[in-house]
């Protein structure tokens, strides 16, 4: 089974040279730590920054320079600042090659729910609805089950959805799955995980064909 860093490490294998990537808050942010050496990947932060660098040293901290998670960050050479409309222009016009998001639920048609739990204080969707409606390539990073042990990979989302038919791939603590018109297609297993464990933890349509390899991390 993978921990958060393992999930991030596996997702980093999806990166390609020249990619522009938007990483959501939480586990997705960790993907930045595993960008392969020598690969040029540019991080977009939807508050208006392309070319985001690592956290600043104490001396570098600048209150005017944050990411979409409101964390202080730095810039890399070749970075650019822009307003929020230009930022979402990049996103909506398909210029962002990969978006990595967390989720509360995903269904087997690629619908995602990650912004609202009825009965709880709703903080808002931020940029999530724009991202899921626009990105051509969305990977969800999440735990396979919730704290109560229930599957988060469902036939139908029970929570209010963020977007329809948009998730292409899910990387969980248990496995990697592609979402196709047949449902969740199992591609890889996390170390120590069996197909049975994935079946048990997946409520939506699961497709298991041939020998499923173990991730190479």
């Amino acid at each position, binding site marked *: 089974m993978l921990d958060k860093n393992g999930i991030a490490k596996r997702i980093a294998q999806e990166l390609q040279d020249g990619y522009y990537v938007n990483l959501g808050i939480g586990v997705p942010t960790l993907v930045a730590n595993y960008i392969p050496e020598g690969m040029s990947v540019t991080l977009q932060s939807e508050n208006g920054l392309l070319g985001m660098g690592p956290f600043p040293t104490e001396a570098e901290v600048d209150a005017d320079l*944050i990411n979409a998670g409101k964390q202080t960050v730095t810039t890399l050479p070749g970075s650019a600042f822009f*307003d929020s409309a230009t930022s979402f222009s990049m996103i909506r016009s398909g210029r962002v090659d990969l978006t990595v998001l967390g989720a509360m639920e995903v269904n087997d048609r690629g619908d995602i729910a990650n912004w609202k739990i009825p009965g709880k204080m709703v903080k808002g969707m931020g*940029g999530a*609805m724009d991202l899921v409606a626009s990105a051509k390539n969305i990977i969800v990073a999440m735990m396979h089950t919730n704290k109560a042990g229930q599957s988060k990979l469902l036939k139908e989302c029970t929570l209010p959805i963020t977007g329809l038919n948009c998730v292409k791939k899910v990387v969980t603590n248990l496995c990697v799955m592609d979402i196709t018109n047949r449902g969740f297609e199992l591609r890889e297993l996390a170390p120590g995980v069996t197909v049975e464990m994935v079946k048990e933890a997946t409520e939506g349509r699961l497709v298991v064909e041939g020998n499923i390899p173990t991730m190479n991390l």
Partner: protein
Amino acid sequence: MNKVVENADQAVASISDNAVLMLGGFGLCGIPENSISALVRKGVKGLTCISNNAGVDDFGIGLMLQGKQVKKMVSSYVGENAEFERQLLSGELEVELIPQGTLAERCRAAGAGVPAFFTPAGYGTEVAEGKETREFNGKMYLLEHAFDPDFAIVKAWKGDTDGNLIFKATARNFNPLMAMAGKHTIAEVEELVEPGELDPNFIHVPGIFVNTIFKGTDYEKRIEQRTVSAG
């Protein structure tokens, strides 16, 4: 033509109860600190605030929430704010949540004289309820409308007395869009210079969009998530 006023109190003098305001900033980054303080001092009530976030309990728009000056918040993410939550749950405060890109584009549309446009964000979700939908090239979109604020209040890095504005780093965010959207735009700047001192190639908001400008003071620039590396 004189757009320059002495301070924030003069700048917000014409804002009265029940006004619809846009306020720039993302989180606490690039917010019009001086103007918010002046609005708190003025005690104006019943405000509708269009702003990506709602501040924190004791800073930013949170200060206006403490004073119960806000009737309605229009935001994409309201964050961690206990007083906000209390007022929302008690029904004192109305909240409209809008996808961030749609929020930005509705600001931009107001400044562009575009009354409505189509965007994919929120299609198939509760955001789409009651909205016109349409297919373009096999994809579904919602019709969204330009905002129509009475005032836009923004914070810039530098400005000149003609109202030209320049922003710094990610403190830019919604500020230029809102500056262009206001029927009356108020800009507070860290540095106020004479016309000709800013390079005309690198103006983020041309002065035509700005009605009132003043030099702000004592910027706190509070940081929400101070993340540092060992270096």
